[in-house]
C-alpha cells in the first residue's frame, strides 16, 4: 500500500521554505506584515469545538515563538460559492512549545529553532458551517511590532478520521508480541538503535484495551520517518506521560510505517488515519474512554498540560 503521508506541520516546512520577496497570494502575511501563518491542524469540521493551531514564520526562516496571538476567523464560502468574508469566532491562541524545547514568559519574539519553536493554539473554536475559513492572526512581536498574517483552512461537514464521540476502532496494532514482523515496523526507532526505546508503549493493542474496558492514550507517529519536526518529541512526551499516568490508562504507540523503504504503511495506521482520498496525516494522539468511545484527539503538536488535564479526569484503574 503506497500512500501519501503528510504531517500537519509539514505545512510549516513549506512555509519555512518561502524565500520570495513577494507577498503570498492568498495565505500569508498581510501587506504590512512580515510573517506567514501556517495552519497546523487538519481534519477540521463544523459544529464541534476544536483546537486550531498555526505556526508563525518569517521569510528568513526565523520563527515567532512564545506569548499569545489573537485569531479572528471569517467564513469565505466554498469552492463553488465563495462569499464576502462573514465574521466568525475569535480566540486567543497560546504558544505551545515543541516538547523538550525552551519555553519562556513574555511576549512573542523572533527565535531561531534552537531558541524556541512551536505553534500557537486556539482552543474551543467552533465553525458553524463547512467551507473555507480565513484566520487573521495578529501578534505583537518584540522588535517587529504588530504583525498580522492570514491563513485559510478548509472546514469539512464531518471529520474524515475518527473524532471525539466516535467509537474507537478495535484495531489489532502491532505489539512486542507480534510474530514475523521486523522491530522497525513496531517502532521506527528500532531501525536505527537496534532496540525499541519505549517497550511499555508497545504492549497493548487498541482492541484489547477496549475489550478490557481500559482507557487508552494512543499515539500514531513515526519518530524516525516523520516529515514534520514533531513526531519524535511527541513520542517522547507520551512515553513520559506513560510513566506518570500508568494507573489512569494504557499507553499505546502505533508506528505509521511497516516498511518505509517499500512505502508500506501499517494497517493500524491506515485503519485510523487514512482519508478517503488516500492521504494520511500524522502524528495524531487519541484518548479513548473505558467505554470505547473517543474522548479527545490532538493533531500535529499539542500541549503536555492539555493531555495531562484529560488524563487527570480519568478515574484510577483498579488493576
Amino acid at each position, binding site marked *: 500500500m503506497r500512500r*501519501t503521508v*503528510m504531517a*500537519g506541520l*509539514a*505545512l510549516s*516546512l*513549506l*512555509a*519555512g*521554505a*518561502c*524565500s*520570495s520577496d*513577494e507577498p*503570498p*497570494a*492568498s*495565505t*500569508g502575511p498581510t501587506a504590512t506584515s512580515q510573517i*506567514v501563518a*501556517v*495552519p497546523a491542524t*487538519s481534519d477540521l469540521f463544523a459544529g464541534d469545538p476544536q483546537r486550531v493551531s498555526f505556526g508563525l514564520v518569517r521569510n528568513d*526562516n526565523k520563527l515567532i515563538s512564545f506569548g499569545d496571538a489573537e485569531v479572528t476567523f471569517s467564513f469565505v464560502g*466554498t469552492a463553488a460559492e465563495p462569499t464576502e468574508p462573514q465574521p466568525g469566532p475569535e480566540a486567543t491562541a497560546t504558544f505551545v512549545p515543541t516538547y*523538550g524545547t525552551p519555553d519562556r514568559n513574555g511576549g512573542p519574539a523572533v527565535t*531561531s*529553532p*534552537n531558541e524556541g519553536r512551536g505553534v500557537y493554539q486556539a482552543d474551543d473554536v467552533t465553525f458553524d458551517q*463547512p*467551507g473555507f475559513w480565513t484566520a487573521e492572526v495578529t501578534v505583537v512581536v518584540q522588535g517587529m511590532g504588530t504583525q498580522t498574517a492570514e*491563513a*485559510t*483552512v*478548509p*472546514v*469539512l*461537514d*464531518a471529520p*474524515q478520521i475518527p473524532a471525539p464521540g466516535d467509537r474507537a476502532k478495535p484495531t489489532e496494532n502491532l505489539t512486542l508480541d507480534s510474530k514475523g514482523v521486523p522491530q522497525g515496523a513496531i517502532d521506527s*526507532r528500532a*531501525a*536505527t*538503535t537496534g532496540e525499541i526505546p519505549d517497550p511499555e508503549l508497545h504492549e497493548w493493542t487498541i482492541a484489547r484495551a477496549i475489550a478490557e474496558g481500559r482507557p487508552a492514550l494512543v499515539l500514531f507517529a513515526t*519518530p*524516525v*520517518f516523520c*516529515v*514534520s*519536526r514533531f513526531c*519524535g518529541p511527541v513520542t517522547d512526551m507520551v512515553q513520559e506521560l506513560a510513566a506518570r499516568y500508568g494507573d489512569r490508562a494504557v499507553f499505546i504507540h502505533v508506528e505509521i510505517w511497516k516498511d*518505509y*523503504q*517499500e*512505502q508500506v504503511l501499517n494497517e493500524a495506521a491506515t485503519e485510523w488515519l487514512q*482519508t*478517503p*482520498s488516500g*492521504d494520511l*496525516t500524522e502524528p495524531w494522539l487519541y484518548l479513548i474512554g473505558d467505554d470505547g468511545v473517543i474522548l479527545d484527539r490532538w493533531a500535529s503538536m499539542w500541549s503536555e498540560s492539555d493531555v495531562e488535564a484529560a488524563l487527570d479526569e480519568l478515574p484510577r484503574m483498579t488493576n
Partner: protein
Amino acid sequence: MRSIGLSVLLALATVACGANGDDATDLHGSVTQDQADEAMAALCGIAEGRVTAFDEVQAAFNNRAHETLHHIAEVAQEEDPAAAGALLEAKSVVETDLEEEAEPPAEIADHVAILAEATASAIRVIGLNAGACSA
C-alpha cells in the same frame, strides 16, 4: 465538503511560498539550492571537526540544517524512498546524540558525517547539487 482533501491545506501553504514569484521556478519541491548548501555546510562543519562545542553543534544542526533535512526528505521520498529513509535514519541517530544532557557522544562527528553523506545523496535525488564533506 467531504471531498475536499487535506491536500488543500498543502496547496494553500504552497501558495504562501510565493507561487507568483520567481522563486517558484527555483524550488525543488520546497528546497532551494541555497538551503541545501547551507544545510550541507552546517553538517560538514560538524563532521570535519570545525564545530565541536556542544552548544555550537546544537545551533548548527538545529538552526541551519534540521528543517531543511525534513524538506529534502519529504521531496526525495517521492522519487527515492531509500535515499529519503537513509537521510531520516541518519538524522535520528544524530538527534539522539544531541539529546544528551551535557556533551554529545564522541562519535557524533562520525554520525554527522554519515548524515551528510545521506543528505548529499538525497539532495542529488531531488535534482540539486551537493558535494561531499572533505573529511
